[in-house]
């Protein structure tokens, strides 16, 4: 992720690593920043799933713990 310009930034943890994001970031902008499509992608925020239909309106807050999950071979 690119370091946002200016001082207005928040720090979230994505898959255990810290990321600095612009204030106003949402789950949707985070997912887009990683270049991911909705199909095959899941997001949990602070231990609870965020439904794909809620990504655009779910604002990220400083200190959020995000799990960004993708389809993988298994089973």
């Amino acid at each position: 992720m690119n370091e946002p310009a200016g001082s207005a930034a928040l720090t979230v943890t994505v898959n255990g690593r810290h990321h600095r994001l612009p204030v106003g970031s949402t789950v949707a902008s985070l997912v887009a920043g990683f270049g991911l499509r909705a199909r095959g992608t899941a997001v949990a925020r602070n231990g609870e799933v965020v439904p794909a239909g809620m990504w655009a309106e779910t604002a990220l807050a400083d200190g959020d713990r995000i799990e960004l999950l993708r389809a993988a071979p298994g089973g």
Partner: protein
Amino acid sequence: MDDPFELAGRRFRSRLLLGTGATSSLETVEATVRAAGAEVVTVALRRLDPDLPGGVLDLLDRLGVQVLPNTAGCMTARDAFVTARCAREAFGTDWVKLEVIGDDRTLLPDPVELVGAAERLVDDGFRVLAYTNDDPVLAGHLAALGCAAVMPAGSPIGSGMGIRNPYNLAIIREQVSVPVILDAGIGTASDAALAMELGCDAVLVASAVTRAQDPVRMAAAMRAAVEAGRLARLAGRIPRRRYAQASTPVSGLAVFGPDLDDDA
């Protein structure tokens, strides 16, 4: 032969479900799915890793199979519940192969956490296919609380030890009304055939195919074995008996009299 397999409200021709774990490439996944004739294929959710090749879901979508997300690796009801809810969003299906592991070495299910997770997921509207021990009582609980299928282990995941307790499997089949899918432990084709002969409605195979020296050929072998076992189950095998039972009629046997050469 018209013998559809009904699972969680859908009908399938194939009774062989396939896993995609431990595969060497997406090309191998595609070739094994085709060779197996599988219509239900499992997939997992993992943290985004740019170093891992993506595209397994695109492939399964293109093949038109039912995607069956799993909760592999979860050790608590809570982790399995959240993972299943994530999978529902990622894959657009309310089907889940529920795995709640109780032990790292055996990867056998934790019955307490498993039942807890199954209850929460059924209440949340999931079609729960529960990976379970080969315990008829536990399988009965899972079916009674609303699981769409029970998936007893023949032996530990990836062990290739086959079906360690065929009598338990037969009891499970007698006691639950939902589909019974043998999951885990299959080593080779005869194990899959035995599962079907014991009355299992289907078999899920992963490692036995993906780790075989020739995965595509083993996928074809599993397909033939599942079909053969199912046919044999429907045909009804003969009972086992300690002594022989002649297959040629004993009446009408020729009588030749004494051997005259004996007097010479």
